């Protein structure tokens, strides 16, 4: 573990207040309580807890790397392991910074794992795009002639798709259009787009959510029935 990560982590836990609220503390399982107590302790106990937590996070990050390895053939084993270490380091800092937010709704280890998985997943999504351009204009609309559909179904989908394309042009703000097209049509991972636009996944998803609401409203007004999914037809 990099020594500066340990130092930063140590500084953060020292600044952390004791467990926030009696209600939260009451609901913690014994293992989670032990984790929190050790991370808030001083001296050797604290050092050992940090090392154990880092090892736990590194294991989770390596797990994520292994799950995605088939899509990352351009990276060597050493590069992938380095990425897992970076993810574990970043996750350790994030976990310690958010320690007071842990409310015991899950085991502490489950809560900590998600930070490592997030860090690793985001890094792994971004890596293949480091040298690729991100297209914000529509790159390809599918050719329904190749969809293998019966004529009636093809006609219905063609009509719906045309309505959606019109709605994208006419109902969305330029930002909503760019984000939705890049992510949903061009296949740009949302974390890649967030990095390029200097924003967050959450902010981009909000734009996508709003865009989808506008599209659903418009095509509903045009007489298409969508139900809970996206398979639709004229009412």
């Amino acid at each position, binding site marked *: 573990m990099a020594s500066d990560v340990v130092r930063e982590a140590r500084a953060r836990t020292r600044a952390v207040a004791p467990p926030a609220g009696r209600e939260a503390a009451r609901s913690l399982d014994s293992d989670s309580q032990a984790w929190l107590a050790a991370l808030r302790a001083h001296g050797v106990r604290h050092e050992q807890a940090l090392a154990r937590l880092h090892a736990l996070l590194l294991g989770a990050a390596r797990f994520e790397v292994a799950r995605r390895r088939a899509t990352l053939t351009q990276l060597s084993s050493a590069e992938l392991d380095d990425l897992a270490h970076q993810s574990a380091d970043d996750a350790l800092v994030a976990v310690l910074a958010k320690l007071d937010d842990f409310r015991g709704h899950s085991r502490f280890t489950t809560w900590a794992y998600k930070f490592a998985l997030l860090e690793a997943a985001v890094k792994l999504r971004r890596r293949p795009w480091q040298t690729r351009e991100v297209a914000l204009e529509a790159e390809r609309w599918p050719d329904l002639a190749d*969809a293998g559909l019966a004529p009636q179904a093809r006609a219905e989908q063609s009509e719906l798709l045309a309505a959606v394309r019109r709605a994208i042009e006419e109902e969305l703000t330029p930002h909503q259009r760019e984000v939705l097209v890049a992510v949903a049509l061009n296949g740009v991972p949302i974390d890649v787009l967030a990095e390029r636009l200097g924003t967050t996944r959450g902010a981009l998803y909000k734009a996508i959510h709003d865009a989808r609401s506008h599209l659903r409203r418009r095509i509903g007004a045009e007489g298409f029935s969508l139900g809970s999914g996206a398979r639709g037809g004229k009412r």
Partner: protein
Amino acid sequence: MTEPPSTNVEELLQRLLGPAGPELGCEQCFEQLDRYVELELAGVDADAAIPGMRAHLHGCPACDEERASLRALLSRAG
């Protein structure tokens, strides 16, 4: 994961139009992810316990990948 999107029209329409109904945002999803997955693995109705989570996971592939990873990791860890 990082693969080109399918050109299947129905899947494309799903990606463009997303889930119907209310859903959580990405930050809320992350906050609830550990609880949601533990409930899933315990056989509890996680969707009833955390309304809007399932819809968000349908609409956000990145969050859903992380849910799948956490579930797989916990399943492996036992």
